[in-house]
């Protein structure tokens, strides 16, 4: 027995919940599937505030923000499946996607013409940044440490060194300090910090926690538990500078060295990932190249604000509902005019990767490839016609930029759209 829903959303975090709400509002019958016991995703452990400034015009904590969306799920045509784990997904010919799940009630299946993956991201581990030396207990990813402190109520150590200046690392520097641990310093291999400026100020400067740029952890010491780390400076190519080794006694090492979109479930569907975003490229409706498959939030690309995550979720929900209810089948998609968006100049990446002619007006997000003072962004047609222009006084790669674009500005027979950023 398999139940059919118009739209199935995989993942019940801020992207998935927003997607489910928008899909239901678009008239679809929605299944929302979450592998953990409770909805909310990583928000459950983000007890600091600053969430919801754009979506709700309020400063909410993570659990409060998740609660708002949980309230919205109620009273809508959304069936929520928690503790439910997707084991298999394939695309059939008739009903669209066939999915198998495992749950405490046993294995079961669902089918849907449209599926939205909102599976979030995972933290890069010490091994993935080639951390060396011993391999003792006491090495945590920042999110792991955050969970232990905020959900379990336990401290992961007394004296911590933080490697990487990603936002969770900065937030944990403050959090660990508030809970009575000593944070010796934050070390960043790059020449510039990776986190948001507001977190650099509020989490480090306000607590007198030093940030060491162009410095990395070369080796971990301690066979059973972390006893010390050796840090060293690196040159512009990232090579250790000899003579700069410094041994820092500590009992824990917290890693905030990047996030990776979790898209392993897409492997079986044969969808290739964009090398830069590590998500599948999507159009402005958040649909991938596989008709009926949508993706949103941090599974699509790593966002810096939860508000943006939910915004892309809502767009995916609207798109999936439209697809499921109206434009079922691949034939119409084939006739749809798809315009690739090509990054150019100082663009690290932009989303969406393509536009469909009859889709909704896109919201573009982009990151600069390096810090720029005074830059100009242009959207151009292949003929060089400037369709959109915006000036920026200061751009940093960690800060994602957002702007809206009107499809009416797109000329007829526009083969591609050039997304160009340059210093001026």
């Amino acid at each position, binding site marked *: 027995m398999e139940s059919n829903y118009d739209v199935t959303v995989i993942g019940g975090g801020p992207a998935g919940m927003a997607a489910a709400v928008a899909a239901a509002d678009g008239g679809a019958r929605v299944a929302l599937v979450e*592998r953990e016991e409770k909805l909310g995703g990583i928000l459950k452990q983000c007890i600091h505030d600053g969430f919801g400034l754009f979506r709700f015009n309020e400063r909410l904590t993570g659990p409060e923000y998740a609660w708002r969306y949980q309230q919205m799920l109620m009273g809508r045509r959304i069936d929520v499946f928690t*503790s439910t*784990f997707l*084991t298999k997904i394939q695309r059939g010919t008739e009903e669209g996607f066939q999915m*198998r799940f*495992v*749950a*405490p*009630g*046993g*294995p079961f299946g669902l089918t849907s013409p449209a599926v939205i993956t909102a599976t979030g991201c*995972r*933290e890069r*581990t010490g*091994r*993935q940044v*080639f951390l*060396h*030396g*011993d*391999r*003792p*207990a*006491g090495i945590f*990813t920042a*999110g*792991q440490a955050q*969970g*232990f402190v905020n*959900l*379990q*109520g*336990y*401290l*992961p*150590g*007394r004296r911590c060194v933080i490697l990487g200046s990603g936002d969770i690392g900065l937030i944990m520097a403050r959090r660990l300090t508030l*809970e*009575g641990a000593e944070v010796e310093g934050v070390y960043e291999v790059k020449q510039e910090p990776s986190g948001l400026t507001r977190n650099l100020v509020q989490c480090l400067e306000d607590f007198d926690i030093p940030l060491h740029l162009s410095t990395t952890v070369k*080796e971990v010491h301690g*066979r*059973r*538990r972390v006893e010390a780390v050796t840090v060293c400076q690196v040159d512009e190519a990232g090579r250790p500078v000899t003579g700069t080794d410094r041994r820092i006694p500590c009992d824990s090492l917290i890693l905030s060295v990047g996030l990776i979109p979790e898209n*392993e479930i897409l*492997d079986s569907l044969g969808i290739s990932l964009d090398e830069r975003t590590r998500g599948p490229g999507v159009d402005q409706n958040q649909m991938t190249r596989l008709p009926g498959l949508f993706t949103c939030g941090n599974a699509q690309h790593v966002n810096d604000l939860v508000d943006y995550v939910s915004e892309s979720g809502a767009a995916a929900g609207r798109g999936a509902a439209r697809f499921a209810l109206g434009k079922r089948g691949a034939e119409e998609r084939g006739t749809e005019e798809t315009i690739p968006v090509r990054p150019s100049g100082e663009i690290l990446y932009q989303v969406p990767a393509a536009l469909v002619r009859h889709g909704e007006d896109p919201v573009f997000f982009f990151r600069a490839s390096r810090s720029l003072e005074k830059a100009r962004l242009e959207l151009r047609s292949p003929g060089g016609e400037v369709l959109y222009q915006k000036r920026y006084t200061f751009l940093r790669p960690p800060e994602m930029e957002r702007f809206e674009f009107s499809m009416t500005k797109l000329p007829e027979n526009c083969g591609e759209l050039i997304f160009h950023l340059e210093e001026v």
Partner: protein
Amino acid sequence: MESRSARGEKILAVYLKKLGSRGITGVEASLEDGVLFLTGDVPTLEDRLTAGFEGAKIKKKYRLRGVVNDVTVNQRSSVPMSLPSINDTLLEGRRFDAVIIGGGIIGTAAARELSRWNISIAVLEKEEDLGLHASSRNDGMVHPGFAASPGTLKASYNVRGNRLYTRASEELGFTLRRPGSILLFSHPAMILLLPVFKRRCRKNGVSGGRWVSRRTLARWEPELTDKQRGGFLLPTAGIISPQEVVLAYGENAASNGVEFFFHTAVTGMEKQGDIITRIVTNRGTLSAGVVLNAAGVWADQVADYAGDRFFSIHPRKGVDAIVDKKQKDSLNHIVGMPSLRGNRRSHSKGGGLVLCVEGNLLLGPTAEEVLDREDYTTHQKDLAILKKHMELDRRLRESDIITYYAGTRSATWEEDFIVQPSDRVANLVYAAGIQSPGVASAPAIAEDLAAFAVKILEKSGAVGPRPDFNPHRTPRPVLAELSEEERRRWIEKDPAYGRIVCRCEEVSEGEIRDTLRGGLPATTVDGVKRRTRAGAGRCHGGFCLPRVMEIMARETGKDLGDIPRGGDGSWILMKRKETVNGK
């Protein structure tokens, strides 16, 4: 002293002259009871190695009993064995027919073989779980037996062990696959080596070895490097999970009455005449009819306790790296491309890409001589070597590496296994120098060890078979590998089998909980990981560690802050009362 005999003087003179010609001074040599003892101090590790290997040549030439190399390097010698912190009297006054020192793959396999007999058996393991040193720190290859030189114990045990794995896997319920391995040729002229390879196969008793053309290889392995010029296929090469095999042997032995004592290190022995009468441990002094030395890198120390030093171990570190499962379809055979100008002294088969039964690919291993036998640190240079193996497969990227680890091989200077009863101690049996291909050889070594031990025990009375010996072990189910119907039946029995805790490896709460009960239960987070793979996937426990710890705390009635990652001192969280919330 034999050193003073004419023959002894001559042997020592030949040896020291040889060292002198290599520019090494500072080594002193003596002969005692047919064993060449080396002492003194040299400036480099390289010199110490030369002293040892030249000693082994002299040993062979003059048919000595062995080589013991105590030469220090700038006054640095081997780092002492790490000891458990516990001290109690658990074993005080106990007596077993057989005591096995070391709970690695050799110790557990020997325990299982001995448990066929109606005798009392104890396994003493200094760590908190089985197989934590070389036995789990290797690439899990069941080598075909081609690499070892004909006539060595390595060659015969390897070929025999390889064959025995089929039955062991059926009886003990562990996964064995035989994908075969291919020695890739880097130069067309290597085809001239074919007769040599075939002769080697014939001498060692390796079946099925044959040449495969470049084109066939390209068809079999579409992602394989263009640099290959054909290769030599060894179809009997297999793979197992060494952790699973150690646990399988251990659990089957335990179900047949073998007692396992963890956190138990042998620190000395007492003898009367040529018989070991008492074994001193940190948990009391016990006695045994026969003692089996399966102490891995510390086997020479155990020999010393018994007053029977005739070999010494020089640890050789190796590093392996594991590639994300999503690249699992990349390769069908184990492949390696030995360098023609390989370092002869490295005593390594050169490494390559190995398949894992779990579905990952493995890169490795490296080979580096070290002084510290439990030094498992890794360095950038190790990964640089391993990344070269990635070139053999076009699809592999550096970002596919999810983890890496080090182990140390317990090499003797002779670079061969020692599997025999002691020549000087009446109730001592050795399995020493068990480096690669130790995993592949383990089932065969275990058979012989058990036979030696029983023969010794029979001297003081008849030894009968255990009437209720059960050769079979029912493995715990891996739910992710079951059909949906089978899975449904487990979940109907207990919904905990339907709650997925480890998302990368799809491990359920029920499977994790089961490892904490019965048999040889997991007592640490790493123990759970080794038994279930929870935390062994690409996120490496980023998501599931807190859940695994909660399940362990609930099952054992412990505080979350008392759940360790591994052995003594590997605490994960500060205790509740030490945290601010608990104030």
